[in-house]
């Protein structure tokens, strides 16, 4: 065993890295909505975690009643969540005029609690999980089994993010969105309806949460209280990536999960998240705006 030990460790590390990339995709999906919302409206949606869980529960309800496959249920849940997002933005976020950033944290936190409460009432706090054939079916690559659900999740992430990039860079709406992200006032001056753009952007952000929710719900047992852990991870991801940067969110999510998984096998699982935080702090000391963030005066 002695001679093989380093080789064994190496394969373990590689497998951990692969796992990190695959699960990183899921977090990238969930974080992308969060960073988009911040980019457009300069607000931190602390309720994004709860919205992911809501998406997971919607798919769960559809699965329970109609035996609808979770991935297929996205056809229903994503538009539904988009609508919910737009509604939430109009009712709860738009009225905030002063102290936006700070108040939005509290408002979205209240929304998260409200969502948690409703879900708890409807579904009870029992842990549930989405079931599908691809949650355990796997194919082997060099003796390591890769489960289909992660592959699907990764592909879904690529598809949605790809669509997002297309919208952002190939449509006029996307142009308006980017303009609003760069400078809200200037965008208004050139005729962009920032209110409409904000509402739609929020809707998009929430719709991506639905997608993330499905994959999260297949790979993790969840209950209404699961959003706390989730949101803290998502927030640290988007800060590392740079607030408002889509690219940054994706890279940061991969960095987080790969670091954690490798640390877990090389050092110990208990320090996995801690090491990630240390990396975050170190990056922020030298680049307070995050990896891909824009350093704008008074706007970090």
């Amino acid at each position, binding site marked *: 065993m002695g001679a093989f030990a380093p080789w064994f460790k190496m394969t373990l590390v590689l497998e951990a890295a692969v796992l990190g990339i695959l699960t990183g995709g899921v977090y990238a999906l969930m974080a992308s909505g969060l960073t988009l919302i911040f980019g457009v409206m300069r607000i931190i949606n602390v309720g994004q975690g709860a919205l992911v869980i809501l998406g997971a529960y919607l798919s769960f309800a559809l699965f329970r009643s109609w035996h609808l496959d979770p991935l297929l249920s996205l056809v229903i849940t994503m538009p539904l969540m988009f609508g919910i997002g737009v509604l939430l933005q109009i009712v709860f976020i738009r009225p905030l005029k002063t102290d936006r950033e700070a108040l939005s944290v509290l408002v979205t936190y209240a*929304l998260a*609690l409200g969502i948690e409460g409703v879900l708890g009432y409807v579904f009870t706090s029992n842990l549930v999980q989405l079931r599908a054939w691809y949650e355990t079916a796997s194919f082997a690559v060099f003796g390591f089994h890769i489960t289909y659900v992660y592959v699907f999740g990764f592909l879904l992430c690529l598809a949605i993010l790809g669509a997002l990039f297309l919208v952002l860079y190939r449509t006029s709406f996307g142009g308006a969105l980017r303009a609003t992200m760069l400078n809200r006032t200037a965008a208004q001056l050139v005729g962009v309806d920032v209110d409409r753009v904000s509402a739609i952007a929020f809707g998009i952000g929430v719709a991506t949460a639905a997608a993330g929710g499905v994959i999260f719900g297949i790979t993790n047992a969840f209950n209404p209280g699961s959003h706390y852990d989730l949101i803290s991870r998502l927030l640290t991801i*988007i800060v590392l990536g740079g607030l408002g940067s889509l690219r940054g969110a994706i890279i940061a999510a991969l960095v987080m999960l790969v670091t954690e998984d490798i640390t877990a096998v090389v050092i110990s699982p208990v320090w996995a998240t801690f090491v990630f935080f240390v990396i975050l702090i170190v990056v*922020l000391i030298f680049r307070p705006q995050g990896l891909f963030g824009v350093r704008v005066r008074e706007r970090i």
Partner: protein
Amino acid sequence: MKRKALLLLPVAALAVLLPLVAPDPSTTNIAVFTMMYVGLATAWNIMGGYTGYISLGHAAFFGFGAYALGLIMVHLNITPGYGPFFLVPVVGLLTAVLAVGIGWIALRTRAATFVIVTIAFMFMMQLLAENLVKVTGGGGGLGLPYPHDWGGDFFNTPYYYAMLVLAVLGLLTSWWIRRSKFGLGLLAIRDDEDKALAVGVPTRTFKLTAYVISAVLVGMIGAVYAYYVTYIYPQFVVDPLIGISMVLMAFLGGLGTLSGPVIGALLLEPSQLEFAYRFGASRLYLVFYSAIFLIVILLLPRGIVPSVRDLIGRRRTAKGVT
């Protein structure tokens, strides 16, 4: 000014005499936690309210203070009783050292990034408490020795007074800061940091000082809390819910005001404890709570105290005009 003092007198008297007026332990228990939040909200307000830097990670200091006292008591074999209360300032000092370290790094960032960095530090603290098992007891928790001879009906009282002392200390500090040049500098930072820097306000030092002061108070309160509940776990003292509650109370009452955090705490804490007791079982408690939360934030975005002040102010001018 005199009118304000007259108003304060009965309130202060009630606060001091509460355990004698309402000795039932279930009441004093709620009083302990309420006074705790009065102190926490006031302390947090010194940073969040005056400088505008919203820290959502103050629970790190709360938990640090809790564990600090616990570890001192356990490792130095301190006999429980009134003695440990005098160790609380020592905990304050230790918290100051920690806060300088964390603050120096965190304050390199601003606005939204700062918020999230404070959250990151809080989780790091929680992880340290969980993983340094030989020191903190890890997930198994840490027990603090407590006076067994104080009896059920008396037990809560000394803790109430300890929390009262810390809350008053926080209020006095906050009041003093408002009247000082330091406070003026902080408010200038909140309004426009770059301008403040341009006119010569030592922003880095001021921000760090405010951060440390607020952290020290929170840490000391955390220590008394640990002593009161007698057994602590990492996730229950480095608890994001405690962190966000103190923020919410300060906002509700009025950021940057003196009485705002106090009112926020007095309104939220006892009602939350009672609601959970009476309605928790119906699971709608969370929905109810969040609804109240949202209504208040949307209707009174500046908080209760400034809104009430505005209302009184407008009534006065209206009267004056007619």
